[in-house]
């Protein structure tokens, strides 16, 4: 079954056309990578799916339901989470408080004005468990703005996953990471997304080919090819447009 589906999705920024009729199908439980050259429209695709932009034409379906034009908070509540290409954490809050906000959101604790948040033991325990899983427990009380780059990326990714969404969209999670950090991040994502559906945008082909079950290649706002990693590697169109002829 397709957990996410876009039908003839178009988007233009007041005249500048970026997406031309995208028909994307994401199967439940798979790890799907979206690749393509700079300016292909990958992030715009994410933004139209997750409600940052309203698509100018076409529809988006999530779990069979038409969610076109839903606002981000509504999508978050029905089980869609995302991370950002540019790290987007609460810089003045500690790592613990960052994750805790996601955990509170997961439990639907929003307008609670009658309890001291530090005294909610279940929330604290769950947050600490999460911090342990993502290896941030030593940085528990460090403000997110002061974390090292790799650590703040890890926080970024774990915040997207802490709300326990069914579908996670990760926008270039490894951007700017060192080899070691990338390696750790890939391991982290493998561990954290067990049994979930993940869509990633990525430029690092090692990451893409090691993580993805299926790949979609985007080129100038159109889907060039979709398929298993091996098929994509051998696809002549993809080679011409993006991968090049050098054998990986």
């Amino acid at each position, binding site marked *: 079954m397709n957990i996410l589906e876009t039908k003839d999705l178009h988007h233009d920024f007041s005249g500048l056309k970026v997406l031309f009729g995208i028909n994307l199908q994401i199967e439940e439980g798979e790890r799907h990578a979206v690749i393509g050259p700079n300016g292909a429209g990958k992030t715009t695709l994410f933004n139209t799916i997750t409600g940052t932009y309203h698509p100018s034409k076409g529809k988006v379906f999530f779990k069979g339901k038409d969610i076109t034009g839903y606002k981000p908070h509504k999508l978050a509540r029905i089980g869609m989470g995302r991370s950002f290409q540019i790290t987007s954490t609460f810089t003045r809050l500690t790592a613990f408080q960052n994750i805790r906000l996601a955990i509170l959101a997961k439990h639907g604790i*929003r307008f609670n004005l009658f309890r001291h948040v530090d005294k909610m033991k279940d929330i604290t325990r769950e947050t600490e468990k999460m911090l342990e899983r993502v290896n941030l427990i030593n940085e528990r009380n460090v403000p997110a703005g002061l974390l090292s780059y790799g650590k703040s990326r890890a926080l970024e990714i774990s*915040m997207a996953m802490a709300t326990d969404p069914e579908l996670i969209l990760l926008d270039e999670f490894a951007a700017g990471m060192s080899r070691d950090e990338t390696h750790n991040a890939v391991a982290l994502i493998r561990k954290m997304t067990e049994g979930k559906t993940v869509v990633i945008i990525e430029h690092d082909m090692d990451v893409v080919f090691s993580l993805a079950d299926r790949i979609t290649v985007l080129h100038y706002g159109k889907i060039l090819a979709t398929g298993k990693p091996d098929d994509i590697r051998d696809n002549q169109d993809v080679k011409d447009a993006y991968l090049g002829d050098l054998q990986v």
Partner: protein
Amino acid sequence: MMKKTIKPILWLALLVILIFFPKLFGVYYTNVFVTFAIFATYAVAVNVLLGYTGLLSFGHAMFFGAGGYGTALALKHIDGLALMPAIGIGFLAAMLLALVLAPLVTRVSGTAFAMIHLAFGQLFYILALKLRHITGGEDGIGNFPIPAFTIPGLISIPLKGDPVNFYYLAIVIMGLSLWLMWFFTKTPFGQIQVGIRDNEKRIDYLGYKIPQTKAIIYVVSGAFSGLAGCIYGLFHNLVSADGSLGAMISFSPIIAAMVGGVGSFFGPIWGTAVFQVIEELTHRFTDRVELVMGVILILVVMFAPSGITGAVNTMKMKWHAYTASKAKMEKTS
């Protein structure tokens, strides 16, 4: 561990000082302290928006005034109205005003938010001047009856013309307001609030509704500003356009919050205290109090941008770093 035992003792000491304040310092300083308590609460209410949510309002005087005018009008026109309902009317008037404005103002932020408030603040100021038959124009509403604080069948404490009794009423109400606002910042909702300040987009993607969240914070801030204004009106037995709705009423809590430190809950209280002391001292030499305050604000912005509390924290951190490095040096040598 030391801290845990010291803290309750300090609070207890504060409580004792507050109880015996009128006896220790006399009527004049008791009145000064009431003014301080009112403006400290008001500054904290403004800071709930400014420091915790990152929204700067240049027109909070309209809430301060709404509270004052609400209570004054109610006491003037309703015969035999008791004290607590009158204060409640002031509180609700400010709350209602915030509720009406919330759908509009929560959709903007930054400069637009500040400017809209400047406009609304001035609008209410002009309205109070022009609607003479209701508000008394420039003269305001003065000498309205102030009922005694009564618990039916138990006690009746007269307030009019009794500064000491009024002191206790003001301190209890302001103390309670401060505690409620402090608790507000500690709830899960308070966490969402600082989240909005740091990163609105992320809060949205976590599944929180931003305008609704902002609206609640806005109403809380407006209502407590109104409560401060209401006690202020009762304290002077007068509400007037300049005294309760003027532009300085909007700016002074912002200045106090900035001097004290917007990043902390208690910062605005320290800031208000500093200004009270300076005002007392300057008044002995000149009436140009604003001149001195302006200079201090400039100095703080230049040399301690995070205010008094920020500067103290930085010093603390430096001291810890210094002692830590010293201990390390001793260990190695």
